[in-house]
């Protein structure tokens, strides 16, 4: 689907590592203030594409990419792009919650501090705002200076979300953020996402088709490195156009 003024425009992106093609000529527009879901069976290239949007794949050696990715109309892969600044605008939450060593507060402050925020009051405000946005404040407000590793898995994952939100990004990327969580924690994270989409552009790789259907405003189905279908969530899960999408959504394979 091509739209006017998309937040993120991915144009003819192909991507290979170790000579193996992971993405094949993918073109897709991502809308602002909505949840876009990249779903499909494993090995489809969803995570790879997600990591391309904030250039985390720069850290991997032996890769080759062609095509363009535009954020607000500007190519994020042109030479001279400030990559750390880009990553502050495009946050990432990983499949396994990994708090940094240290306290809850230190985790949230990490990004802003690296960005040069020194003022204690300002940092304090950031901590409260981020944890509130991530629906974690009430649970941790009395243990901000306790070790982050002592939180439960679901709390840790919301802490990771808060950690990204502390940088006030435009875009939040989430790679199977609930794959390690119980249903109650998963529900909390999903509710958090619904709240967040008022202000953020959210792209999520869900951990199941059911989750994809629950949260998607738009959904893109990936199979073997190709984008098969990209449409509003209500349509793709009820009346898929492509036979392969239908087979996957109805559980015939996957």
């Amino acid at each position, binding site marked *: 689907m091509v739209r006017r003024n998309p937040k993120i425009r991915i144009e003819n992106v192909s991507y290979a590592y170790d000579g193996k093609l992971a993405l094949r000529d993918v073109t897709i527009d991502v809308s602002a203030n909505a949840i876009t879901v990249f779903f499909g069976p494993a090995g489809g290239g969803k995570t790879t594409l997600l990591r391309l949007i904030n250039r985390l794949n720069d850290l991997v050696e032996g890769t080759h990419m062609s095509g363009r990715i535009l954020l607000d109309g500007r190519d994020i892969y042109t030479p001279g792009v400030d990559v750390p600044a880009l990553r502050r605008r495009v946050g990432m939450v*990983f499949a396994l919650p990994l708090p940094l060593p240290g306290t809850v507060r230190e985790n949230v402050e990490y990004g802003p501090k690296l960005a040069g925020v020194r003022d204690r009051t300002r940092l304090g405000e950031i901590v409260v705002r981020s944890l509130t946005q991530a629906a974690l404040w009430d649970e941790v407000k009395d243990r901000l200076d306790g070790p982050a590793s002592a939180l439960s898995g679901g709390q840790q994952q919301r802490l990771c979300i808060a950690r990204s939100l502390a940088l006030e990004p435009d875009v939040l990327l989430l790679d199977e953020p609930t794959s390690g969580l119980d249903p109650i924690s998963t529900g909390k994270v999903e509710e958090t996402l619904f709240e967040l989409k008022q202000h953020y552009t959210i792209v999520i790789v869900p951990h199941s088709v059911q989750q994809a259907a629950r949260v998607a405003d738009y959904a893109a189905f990936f199979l073997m490195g190709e984008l098969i279908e990209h449409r509003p969530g209500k349509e793709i899960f009820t009346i898929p156009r492509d036979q392969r999408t239908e087979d996957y959504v109805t559980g015939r394979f996957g």
Partner: protein
Amino acid sequence: MNRYLTQRVGFALLILTALVVVVPILLVIGTIVVQGVSAINWEFLTHMPRDGMKAGGILPAIVGTLLLTLGTAVAAIPVGVGGAIYLAEYARDTWLTRAIRLAIINLAGIPSVVYGLFGLGLFVLFLQFGTSILAGSLTLALMTLPIVISAAEEALRAVPVEFRTVSASLGGTRWQGIRHIVLPQALPGIVTGVILGLLRAAGETAPILFTVAAFFLPRLPQSLFDQTMALPYHLYVISTQVPGMPLDIQYGTALVLLALVLSMSLVATIIRNYFRRRRQW
């Protein structure tokens, strides 16, 4: 022979091999303590040697060894840890990094007397540092480097790669991730490696033989360019070069050197455990 008996015999043999390691260490320490403890007193630790080193104390040798160890640390830690950070965090697998690694392995295998001769040639003569604490420290530092680099690199590699990814995803540069996350996590391993290297340096004789050690110099060094006495070399001198040396002074000197090295090792263990308890993954 049934298999239970086989197992018992096997265990017995294994215990025996373990004892073979423990017994000599206990014997060495025991002999030195028993024979040397009578020489240890306040004068022995705090006074200059006199009467051809047959009486008085060994203060200059103690101070010399402490200074040399400190000098070695100052020279070897920044270079060694810096090199390890480069190898573990930045270097790609090229012919150059492979050559560097090969060099480190080979440096570790060079006999210490060769380091001594090299130090004499480079620091004492060519760079004209003279026979001095500076030359001796640098020579010992060279010998210590491979140990520090290998241990530090291993400690850095043991920190999960995901921490670096998380730091990068939060807008951290590569160096910020290393500085704030990776290094603190790797610190226990680095400290262990550094202390192991320094222990070896503190006890070496050959590298300081031509570069710093004085046969008999009953005063404390005043600058980096002074010679000094040092415990390992002093021990060698009073054991082989001075006829009629009282036995308890020889063993007493050995005891002081041993105590110095073992207490450094103890401090290392304490530091390592302290940092390890603070680590949380």
